[in-house]
């Protein structure tokens, strides 16, 4: 399986990439790590007329702490984050979450920006972006704009990016001291059938600033405001997933298409919440 013929251009920088995208009028795709795009092209499920390669640009490679938040250049590779000594309060769990992304060889090529722009509901970066209200910095021919994750992700593998725009940076305005992600997969490295992320700070032993999101189940990762409220303020030692099962069921049923929500899937999803909730307080970040 070889890709269909395509034109190829190397972008000098992000600005040049937007010019090239505009020139190609929606017929070009950006190439970053290629770990989602190239398999699809090999299968000929996608046949872009042209590829615009960001691989040799100098920009978008940074991992920066700023004002209590984290800024990641779009071209940062998963493995860089995995092996980076992140000693930033509120983000110390991040390297451990990277280990859930595919397998090591994929992590040495795949990028944060690529994962977010690809917008797979099972992707760990998309789950984190929705969980922590990330902000996406987008460059187009007319300049920069910043979009909240909730508006950026619009549908199945569909984002707010126009055909002449490129994702430059991913910002997490606020971390959490405690976070856990649990994925239900049949084999390590598979796309998650269901995943759940639970994050919070602890204030005098009580859960604070709770955020909870599910991935894999629906067209996009989604938050659970009712569930978050139910956990907020509870003593960490007393929170029990079992007591929250009705709310979990309600939240999932509200969001996941009823024809897709089998009893099996609901059971699996509830279990990922159970694991993530316990993991969050027990410090078991990724499972």
């Amino acid at each position, binding site marked *: *399986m070889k*890709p269909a013929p395509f034109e190829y251009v190397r972008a000098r920088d992000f600005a040049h990439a937007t010019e090239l995208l505009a020139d190609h009028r929606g017929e070009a795709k950006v190439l970053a790590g*290629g*770990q989602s795009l*190239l398999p699809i092209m090999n299968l000929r499920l996608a046949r872009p007329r042209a590829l615009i390669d960001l*691989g*040799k640009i100098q920009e978008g490679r940074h991992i920066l702490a700023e004002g209590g938040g984290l800024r990641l250049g779009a071209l940062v590779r998963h*493995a860089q984050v995995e092996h980076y000594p992140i000693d930033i309060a509120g983000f110390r769990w991040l390297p451990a979450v990277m280990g859930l992304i595919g397998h090591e*060889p994929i992590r*040495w090529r795949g990028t944060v920006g690529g994962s977010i722009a690809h917008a797979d509901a099972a992707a760990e970066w998309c789950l984190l972006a929705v969980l922590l209200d990330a902000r996406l910095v987008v460059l187009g021919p007319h300049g920069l704009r910043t979009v909240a994750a909730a508006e950026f992700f619009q549908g199945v593998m569909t984002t707010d990016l126009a055909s002449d725009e490129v994702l430059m940076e991913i910002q997490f305005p606020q971390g959490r001291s405690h976070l856990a992600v649990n994925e239900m997969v049949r084999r390590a490295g598979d796309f998650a059938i269901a995943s759940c992320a639970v994050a919070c700070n602890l204030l005098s032993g009580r859960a604070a600033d709770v955020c909870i999101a599910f991935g894999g189940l629906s067209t996009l990762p989604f938050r659970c405001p009712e569930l978050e409220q139910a956990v907020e303020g509870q003593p960490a030692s007393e929170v029990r997933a079992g007591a929250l099962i009705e709310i979990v069921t309600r939240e999932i049923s509200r969001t996941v298409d009823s024809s897709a929500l089998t009893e099996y899937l609901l059971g699996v999803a509830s279990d990922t919440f159970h694991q993530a909730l316990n993991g969050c307080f027990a410090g078991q970040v990724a499972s």
Partner: protein
Amino acid sequence: MSLNDSNECRIAVQLQVNGTSFAGEVAVRVSLADFLRGELGLKGTHVGCEQGVCGACTVLLDGRPVRSCITLAIQADDCNVETVEGLAEGHELSYLQAAFKAQHGLQCGFCTPGFLMLLAGTASSISDRQSARETLSANLCRCTGYRSIVDSALSYTRGKEDAE
């Protein structure tokens, strides 16, 4: 597909493969795997799924394991590539290869170059069967049932500091 067609888009690349320089024009849609096999005659890198799932095509790119079937050859421009052919010293098996031989870590051998290069370049630490399994789960084997591959990996990581 004929890569000799005049309408194939080609660009100039230069890279190091197992210590030898290559410079020339390469068709943009050729995978690194097909480039190594077809252009350079290095058939040790195997093409299994071409979707980035099986890992038989694993090579090192600037010292890191990558799937060469989902890497374009032109993405390796200015990079250093290492393949299974680069492991042995002449006719002498490397310590890694010797571990696979001693532990019977292969049967048909199709997946083996991928496992060897994965282990040669992995940044993860393999200290026991569980951690070996986690790292090795990147690649598929249809023959062995994996136990002897885990044995080989452990034999390699436990002994390599003494050997190298």
